[in-house]
């Protein structure tokens, strides 16, 4: 504990000195989020400085080994770092599918060569990754994917189409599920491959959503050459890794049910919008609905905490991620509905400076995708029914 206290003091002092003041304010616009990558335009000098300083400590990937550029922190130290970052309401230095998803998979399943090639640039925010999973004919039934990789000796030639690829038009590399054996049972003929988005034959087309934004793309793969050295794990054993990554993704998306540090709580926003009357929110019906949401959100936050504590103690249910994904995304959708209601007609403004370019309405519409992407709520309920409850 003494070591941990010392670590906390050092961390606090370092952050105090190195986290720019403008990086301690809540993020209000999309450009406030730093994604890194070859083509990224930094919104400010401070945003770049903050990324570079954190990356130099390895703290953009705090629990990765130092030999691959990570911070090498223990679970306890990582927790301290998170707490200290939250204490000063620091913005994330880097948002990265590399750190969240493919990095952990390469660490767990990848060759030494892949680790040395890919992990350090992820930590430094130099390479931005996207995920090639869903296809036009393989959404909820992901294992039915058809993108075909034909063995050409030392490389594959890939043909097919991916859809719902997050930020494919801005990404530098893709981690992609392809069919390497069309004759095997569908889960057994899949491999996870990595390729540069500038490889000839790769093209992307953004999809405009009901929220007006285009975070997703269609990605076309036309005779794309992928070196065999860029297969993560064994050939035809990609489904295991895909499931591992889906678990990560679910936990990440499920986490949206929680109020992030530096973000105002729903109740605080409600008080600002509506005001108090005798210590109570001035609208009875909204107050009841907000209290109900707040109860569920607090209970969910404690459950996410308990799941982590149980895992550390070697207990707990498997497939907790399905439950967290289901409940967390439904919770976030309810939150967004309440935010629109609280703001009344202001909550439906679409454009104009007055109401942050329609952020409330756009976030509300974007949240509808939370219970679809990364496995729909219905798929999560199937997983819980079959894998945990044994109902079939």
């Amino acid at each position, binding site marked *: 504990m003494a070591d941990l206290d010392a670590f906390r003091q050092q961390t606090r002092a370092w952050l105090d000195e190195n986290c720019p003041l403008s990086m301690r304010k809540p993020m209000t616009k999309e450009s406030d989020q730093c994604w890194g990558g070859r083509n990224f335009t930094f919104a400010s000098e401070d945003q770049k400085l903050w990324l570079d300083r954190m990356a130099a400590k390895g703290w953009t990937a705090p629990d990765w080994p130092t030999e691959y550029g990570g911070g090498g922190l223990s679970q306890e130290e990582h927790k301290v770092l998170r707490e200290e970052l939250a204490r000063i309401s620091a913005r994330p230095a880097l948002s990265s599918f590399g750190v969240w998803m493919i990095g952990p998979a390469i660490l767990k399943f990848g060759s030494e060569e892949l680790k040395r090639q890919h992990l350090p640039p992820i930590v430094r925010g130099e390479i931005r990754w996207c995920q090639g999973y869903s296809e036009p004919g393989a959404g909820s039934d992901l294992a039915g994917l058809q993108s075909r990789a034909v063995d050409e000796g030392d490389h594959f030639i890939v043909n097919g189409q991916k859809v719902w690829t997050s930020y494919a038009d801005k990404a530098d590399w893709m981690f992609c599920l392809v069919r390497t054996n069309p004759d095997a049972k569908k889960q057994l003929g899949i491999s996870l491959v990595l390729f540069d988005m500038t490889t000839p034959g790769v093209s992307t087309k953004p999809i405009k959503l009901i929220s007006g934004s285009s975070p997703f793309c269609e990605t076309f793969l036309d005779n794309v050459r992928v070196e065999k050295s860029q297969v993560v794990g064994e050939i035809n054993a990609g489904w295991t890794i895909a499931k591992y990554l889906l678990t990560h993704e679910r936990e990440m998306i499920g986490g949206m049910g929680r109020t992030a540090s530096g973000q105002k709580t729903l*109740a605080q926003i*409600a*008080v600002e919008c509506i005001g*108090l009357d005798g*210590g*109570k*929110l001035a609208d009875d019906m909204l*107050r*009841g609905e*907000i*209290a*109900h949401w*707040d*109860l*569920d959100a*607090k*209970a*969910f936050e*404690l*459950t996410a*905490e*308990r799941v982590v*504590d*149980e895992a*550390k*103690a070697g*207990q707990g*249910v498997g497939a*907790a991620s399905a*439950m967290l994904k*289901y*409940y967390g995304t439904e919770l976030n959708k309810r939150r967004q509905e309440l935010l629109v209601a609280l703001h009344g007609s202001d909550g439906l403004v679409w454009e104009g400076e007055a109401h942050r370019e329609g952020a409330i309405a756009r976030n509300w519409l974007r949240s509808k995708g939370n219970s679809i992407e990364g496995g729909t709520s*219905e798929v*999560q*309920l*199937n997983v*819980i*029914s*079959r894998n*945990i*409850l*044994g*109902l*079939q």
Partner: protein
Amino acid sequence: MSALVLNEEQQMLKDAAKRFMYESAPVSQLRALRDSEDATGFSRELWQGMVEMGFVGTLIPEALGGSQFGYLGMGQVSEQAGRNLSASPLLSTAVGGVAALLLAGSNDQQHALLPKVAAGELLLSLAVDETPRHNPSQVSTRLESKGDGFVLNGRKQFVIDGHVADKLIVSARSSGADSERDGISLLLVDRTAAGVKVERVSMADSRNAALVTFTDVAVAASDLLGEAGKGFDALELTLDVVNGQLAAELLGLSLEAFERTVAYLQERKQFGVTLSSFQGLQHRCAHLFSELELIKSVVLKALMALDEGDEDASMLVSLAKAKASEVAELATNEAVQMHGGMGMTDEFDIGLFMKRARCVQALFGDFRYHANRFALLRGY
């Protein structure tokens, strides 16, 4: 802040309570007490068993004959009592009565009474509510000075095990208007004292509550718990302790109703297949599973917060009681529906879980009461 898991001691207590309640206080015992129209509504033999297991003294300090396992320890016992619908004065005496003495009683009062409770020789009950819906500051029962002592007049309802309790712990008003927090006193009153009339009320769950009236009851100054007119804070803390245990009971009850339902779906066949193969039922079960996971967390956290004297303990208890009430209502309603016609029969146990759930929900504040309190404590 402790990790949200049981320690070894609490886990052992849970295992012991699980075995004991299943073997000695199962649902069939409640059914037998109901069908024989038992005068006390619980088994003295079972109570003695609970004393020997140390359950009755769970909250009592070791120096006074208890085992001092704390609120989370007690929660393990309450959860298992919930699973088995175990009928006993555990809640009224070992939780409510003991908590009031610990939080409001003097050293002398604690030394005189708690060892007797731990030994199973004294039953206690809280007489708090005067209105059908819980409202602890709504106190019209009057306590007036007379000579060296006091005289008590008023009426209390939903007094759990009031007809068998040896002593009642009563909230009464010494001053102030009917709904003010200030001016409320807590006192000990013998059930058999002159002027105390106890009318047993059989509830939907076949457990006992009483209607108690006080007519010019003489109360000695030494029977006051704490200072006159300043009892409300201790009463609120006592109710937090009780509601934490009620939430744990609701958790156990809901888990049991759910597991019985899942087992029934796996066994019952219609259209040539088991009910468990229908997605319409699967998804409702999976949703309920998620809600149950949430109440496991809030109950654990609330009891831990009480043990640690966390400043957010009251907020967390209201969270636990509100959420556990909501989920217990859903779990028992779904259980009856998914058992189909069998769920409507008295012969099948599942209906008993629904009846008990509603009584526990209503006792000392339901979902709405605690959601409102939670919101107030969160500043809105």
